[in-house]
């Protein structure tokens, strides 16, 4: 027994050495910057000189900041639509691919393609598509006689956010399809057969038999898109920069402007900290919601 436990403690020590590099990396590149940000969020600092500690002043300002609330509202719209739409459409397409459409492999590659493109490239491509004069969208609308619908999609305050969001949905969808498709490979087809024998129609089979079996993957995708929705920056920045007139402003672009264009690093840090907790909270709720559904 003594020998056993000595061997056990040796193994534990070996484990410690294996974990150490990753732990140091985590401390240096996550824990330290995060804690620094929390500290900075309670200071006034223009990036030069020493930060001045101001306690919770920045947090009070944040609560009273209309621009922040408007950006947060856009984030919430982004999270709701940007999660629901790609997952809903992605689920349907992945199930179709899974049921054995001819050339499923080719379709899979096509659908996944947006994921391998950089968000900047995607932003540029969609900027072309949305171009008011020569863009594919407006040209198409004019060609089918819907010229009056051909507007400056990214230049109108009513449409800018949704136009950018559509781009993001297109990108997320590829990810959703591939991950859900991988999840579907584990679905027990005998259960689907059993449901057919039980008389379940395709929708009932999908809802009652297939979806419950891919719940873990679904949860993962939802958490990913929710967190992604709160953190979104690149595609908005490339396409509209948060405009016009802050219509497509999201917290990340707002934070960037505050911290690096207005040089209010302290308040920028406050926005980051709050955003992190909002995203964490939303992801936690999403997971809890899925678990409640499983129980």
């Amino acid at each position, binding site marked *: 027994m003594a020998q056993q436990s000595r061997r056990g403690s040796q193994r534990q020590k070996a484990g410690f050495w294996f974990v150490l590099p990753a732990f140091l990396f985590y401390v240096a590149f996550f824990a330290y910057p995060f804690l620094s940000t929390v500290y900075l969020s309670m200071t006034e600092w223009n990036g030069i000189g020493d930060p001045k500690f101001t306690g919770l002043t920045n947090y009070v300002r944040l609560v009273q900041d209309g621009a922040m609330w408007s950006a947060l509202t856009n984030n919430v719209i982004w999270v709701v639509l940007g999660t629901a739409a790609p997952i809903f459409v992605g689920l349907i397409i992945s199930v179709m691919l899974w049921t054995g459409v001819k050339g499923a492999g080719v379709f899979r590659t096509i659908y996944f393609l947006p994921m391998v493109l950089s968000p900047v490239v995607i932003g540029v491509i969609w900027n072309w598509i949305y171009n008011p004069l020569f863009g594919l969208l407006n040209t198409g609308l004019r060609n089918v006689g819907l010229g009056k619908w051909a507007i400056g999609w990214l230049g109108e305050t009513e449409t800018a956010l949704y136009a950018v969001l559509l781009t993001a949905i297109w990108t997320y969808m590829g990810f959703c399809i591939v991950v859900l498709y991988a999840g579907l490979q584990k679905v*027990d087809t*005998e*259960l689907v*057969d*059993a*449901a*057919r*024998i*039980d*008389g*379940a*129609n395709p929708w*009932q089979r999908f809802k*009652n*038999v297939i979806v*419950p*079996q891919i*719940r873990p993957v679904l949860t993962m995708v939802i958490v990913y898109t929710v967190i992604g929705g709160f953190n979104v920056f690149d595609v908005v920045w490339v396409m509209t920069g948060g405009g016009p007139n802050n219509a497509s402003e999201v917290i990340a672009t707002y934070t960037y402007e505050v911290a690096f264009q207005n040089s209010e690093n302290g308040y920028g840090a406050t926005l980051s900290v709050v955003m992190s907790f909002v995203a964490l909270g939303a992801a936690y709720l999403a997971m809890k919601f899925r678990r409640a559904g*499983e129980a």
Partner: protein
Amino acid sequence: MVEVNLKNVKKAYGNVEVIHGIDLEIKDNEFCVFVGPSGCGKSTLLRMIAGLEDINAGEIWIGDKDVTDLEPVDRGISMVFQTYALYPHMTVRENIKFGLEVAKVPKDEIDRRVADAAKNLQLDSYLDRKPGQLSGGQRQRVAIGRSIVRKPDVFLFDEPLSNLDAELRVHMRIEIARLHNRLDSTMIYVTHDQVEAMTLADKIVVLQAGRIEQVGSPLHLYDDPDNQFVAGFIGSPSMNFLPGKVTSVSGSSVSVAFEGGVDELTVELSQNPPAVGDTVAVGIRPEHFTINGTGTKLSVRSDVTEQMGGVGYMHAYTDKETHVVAEIRGRITDLDKDNVVLTFDPKQSFIFNQTGARLR
């Protein structure tokens, strides 16, 4: 009256035909077992009857209805799967009633049927558990419960006992036999286990490579196999086959010199006698051998004997190393292992020609 009729049913995957035109009639209330080795097409055939697989040619009739193009739910069938196929996220109760809810059966009727099934299958105390919390046998009973409550005309079973341990398999086999007696309905059962086939079936359909080799009652197939495949497949341990050559034919009396034979075997083959010089196989069931008895003699070298108590199985080899199994009643003692003489009644032997067809 619910008969099941298959008329020249064919199935192909791409260019590969796996079911080659099957005609079969299963009578009302009959317990029909499809049996055959892995890959013979028995499960595919069952899934075709269920409507889970499309067919490429032919017709499937259930009762007086052509169901060839109907969805599974419209065929009046239910099915029990090899892996039980219970919905893991639903409780036992929800699993059993799922089909009824889908069919919009009134709630009180659903409750009544679920309660009946649970009582009959001793599932009362498990109704609120999930399948993951049940043993293999309990899960199988839930699967059976799910198929009973739908009150189908025809029950389909796809190797339902193959995931159970040996003891439970025997127990569930008896439960299924009881179920058949109680429900008085047509059942079609797929298995690769010929013991299940022999004990459960009214009618056995032996399949090989997508074709029916023979159809008949268990004892008919045992006593009167049409070919070497059926003879070898039905019966446990399997029939022994010894290569031989026809030495003389006189009227219906045929003499065969066979491997290990001390003297020639003479049998009456009136229907399709072979010619002198033909290569044949002599089939002898292990249970038809005795040691040093009367009849035709076979000289072998004994290798291993499995003693089961009341009966023993002697594994032996002829001088040309053909494996022979002999079932010996009582104890085997004082045996000169290198010189064992097994004897059998020529009337209990079977002769097959080179294509495997039985010569009678």
